[in-house]
């Protein structure tokens, strides 16, 4: 009994130590990556290629999801607002919820599963097939050549994707609210314009999406770089990327919202 209990305790302890060790390694890796970012930004075509894979190829899913999220917001929002006789406030509801929360958060979640998993799988497979080791043999630093461009590609793509998501969502809300249901177009836009503030809402949304971009891509490149060099290891790392990145986005969103919007 005591022996069994001891085994459980040491198992938990080992897990905790392992997590702390990984967090430390991830942080050290983050600094190394920032230190090697000079190359990625000087040889910009490398980063440009990653913007293509992370950003351009995510466009379809971001645009379509944004449109549908906006249309659903339009339908649900109208249904609720109409009960209080203030259906004209639909524009405010759609724009504020998209620009402040849904745009950055949902775009980051989609980005984590669409681009983050791809980054992890790519780097992990490069490691498993010893391409990273081969680079090191040729005196090419894999962090500078492979990891940093992917990181910057993701960080630069994320705010643009979030803005596209919000814009598309507002368009979707407009389609359902104004074109389909028949809310007055003038009050839809004018109430939106008087309620949405540039500094408070739009800039805070962009700040959120930059933070999410850093978090998601960091987790993705780290999981790939740290993946055990086996088929199983790469598949586990890909799963961990999506799970950890999604949880990190939601947790960071709570912290950022608490800091930014304290109900003034």
């Amino acid at each position, binding site marked *: 009994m005591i022996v069994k209990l001891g085994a459980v305790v040491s198992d938990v302890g080992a897990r905790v130590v392992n997590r702390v060790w990984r967090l430390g390694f991830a942080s050290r890796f983050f600094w190394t990556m920032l230190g090697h970012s000079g190359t990625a930004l000087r040889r910009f*075509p490398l980063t*440009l*290629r990653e*913007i*293509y894979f992370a*950003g*351009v190829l995510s*466009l379809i899913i971001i645009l379509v999801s944004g449109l549908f999220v906006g249309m659903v917001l339009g339908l649900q929002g109208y249904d609720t607002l109409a009960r*209080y006789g*203030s259906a004209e406030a639909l524009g405010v509801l759609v*724009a504020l919820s998209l*620009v402040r929360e849904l745009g950055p958060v949902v775009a980051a979640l989609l980005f984590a599963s669409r681009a983050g998993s791809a980054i992890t799988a790519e780097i992990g497979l490069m490691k498993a097939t010893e391409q990273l080791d081969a680079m090191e043999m040729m005196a090419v630093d894999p962090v500078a050549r492979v990891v940093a461009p992917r990181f910057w590609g993701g960080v630069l*793509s994320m*705010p*643009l*994707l979030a*803005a*596209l998501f*919000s*814009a*598309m969502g*507002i368009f979707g809300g407009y389609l359902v609210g104004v074109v389909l249901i028949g809310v007055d177009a003038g009050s839809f*836009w004018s109430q*939106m*314009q*008087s309620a*949405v*503030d*540039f500094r408070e*809402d*739009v800039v805070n*949304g*962009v700040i959120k999406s930059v933070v999410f971009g850093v978090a998601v891509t960091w987790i993705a490149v780290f999981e790939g770089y740290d993946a055990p060099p086996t088929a199983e290891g790469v598949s586990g790392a890909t799963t961990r990327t999506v799970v950890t990145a999604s949880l990190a986005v939601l947790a960071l969103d709570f912290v950022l919202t608490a800091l930014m919007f304290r109900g*003034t």
Partner: protein
Amino acid sequence: MMTRKSLDFWVGVFVLMGIAALLFLSLKVANLSSFSNGATYPISARFDNIGGLKVRGAVKSAGVVVGRVTAIDFDNQSFEARVTMALDDRFRFPKDTAAKILTSGLLGDQYVGLAPGGDTANLQAGDTLTITQSAVVLENLIGQFLYSKAAEAPGKK
């Protein structure tokens, strides 16, 4: 593998779309184009009660937005609220303009309404409006209503 040129092209399209979306959000949604770079002049007013007025609330005259509330604080000498507003430079008001706190719709936001007076001199930057009317507080209104109902009730019998 794609050629360098078409890759650059698609990244360019993506960045352009992203910037267009950001511009749409800031100009069309947040309405940055109006009232941000226009010159304004500050005016303050004292109210007994500002109700639910908030910083960045609208200042309207004849229903047109002519400025924004920039600061609200409490004067510990006269126990009144001091509301500072930034009015658009294009609009000038007479010195004896009256300020009221009004509500847009039944449940809408509260705003400051300016009713111009007849003075020939205009308000200058930093002036204080002396004629003000406080926000209507629903509880006081109901209290007055009940009070007057109670007062007339015995006579009606």
